């Protein structure tokens, strides 16, 4: 099946029904291995055992940003091609991206208290991630406010494109401003600055969380397609009754 075939909602449902069970299974297996590696990873020479919080915090940050990146692509699909599956994808990603951004904020705060002496500081990195979380909440609220899904999709697409400005701000905030948050140590020019004994479990956890993200996204898109079918059938029922 070519990727373009999945742009048809009915074909996407078939794809989702086939894919979700084995993708979920792979996710569980990778998670089991990744968590084991995270537990046996050595303490950092400066941060001690709290470095294990990084195995949650970094995937949360990556997936929070990935979610908005996918929403931005979907917004282009909505505004340029007016494709209904782009609307479905945009709506399905929002709560998942919001959840991972929340995970990033909470774990970062719990990591900051023992390392920085404070749960929160209004520096550029933390504030820009908080703004991303608030943008997610705004998008979710907008989907719920406008009843017609195609009208809601256009409004959400515009908000999403405007909000995409936050992504480079998050990424480069630690370079552009003086921040308490450390500079990039994995995704940077040159080699990562983390020792391989900690980098390996971090990458494994990132892969595990990304697989979970993909599984949940496909499942949430399937739910949204079904929800739209329910809505269409109810509209048909109402018009037949009147």
């Amino acid at each position, binding site marked *: 099946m070519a990727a373009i075939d999945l742009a048809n909602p009915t074909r996407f449902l078939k794809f989702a029904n086939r894919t979700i069970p084995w993708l979920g299974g792979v996710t569980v297996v990778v998670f089991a291995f990744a968590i084991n590696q995270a537990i046996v990873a050595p303490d950092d020479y400066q941060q001690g055992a709290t470095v294990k919080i990084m195995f*949650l915090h970094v995937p949360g940050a990556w997936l929070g940003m990935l979610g908005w990146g996918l929403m931005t692509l979907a917004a282009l699909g909505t505004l340029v091609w007016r494709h209904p599956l782009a609307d479905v994808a945009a709506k399905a990603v929002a709560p998942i991206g919001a959840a991972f951004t929340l995970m990033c904020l909470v774990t970062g705060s719990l990591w900051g208290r023992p390392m920085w002496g404070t749960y929160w500081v209004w520096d550029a990195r933390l504030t820009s991630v908080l703004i991303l979380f608030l943008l997610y909440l705004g998008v979710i609220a907008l989907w719920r406010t406008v009843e017609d899904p195609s009208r809601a999709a256009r409004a959400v697409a515009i908000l999403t494109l405007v909000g995409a400005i936050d992504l480079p701000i998050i990424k480069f905030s630690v370079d552009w401003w003086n921040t308490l948050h450390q500079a990039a140590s994995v995704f940077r020019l040159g080699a990562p600055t983390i020792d391989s004994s900690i980098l390996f479990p971090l990458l494994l956890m990132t892969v595990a969380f990304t697989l979970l993200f993909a599984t949940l996204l496909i499942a949430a898109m399937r*739910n949204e397609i079904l929800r739209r079918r329910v809505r269409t059938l109810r509209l048909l029922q109402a018009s037949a009754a009147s």
Partner: protein
Amino acid sequence: MEATSHIVFIVTAYAAAGAVVGGLTAWVMLDYRLQLGKLADLEKRGITRRSAPAAALPAERAKGKT
């Protein structure tokens, strides 16, 4: 010593992440069951899509598990 003093932050972080991921997974699964139930209810009342072949429906529904 250091690990002991920081253990509460580590455990809380993993518990919070577990709650977020678990909550999200549960919500997606429950939503799926809810939508299938609504579709089954509409189908029982004879309201179906004109172009809905059985193969296009979710596997559980096609097997009559709902």
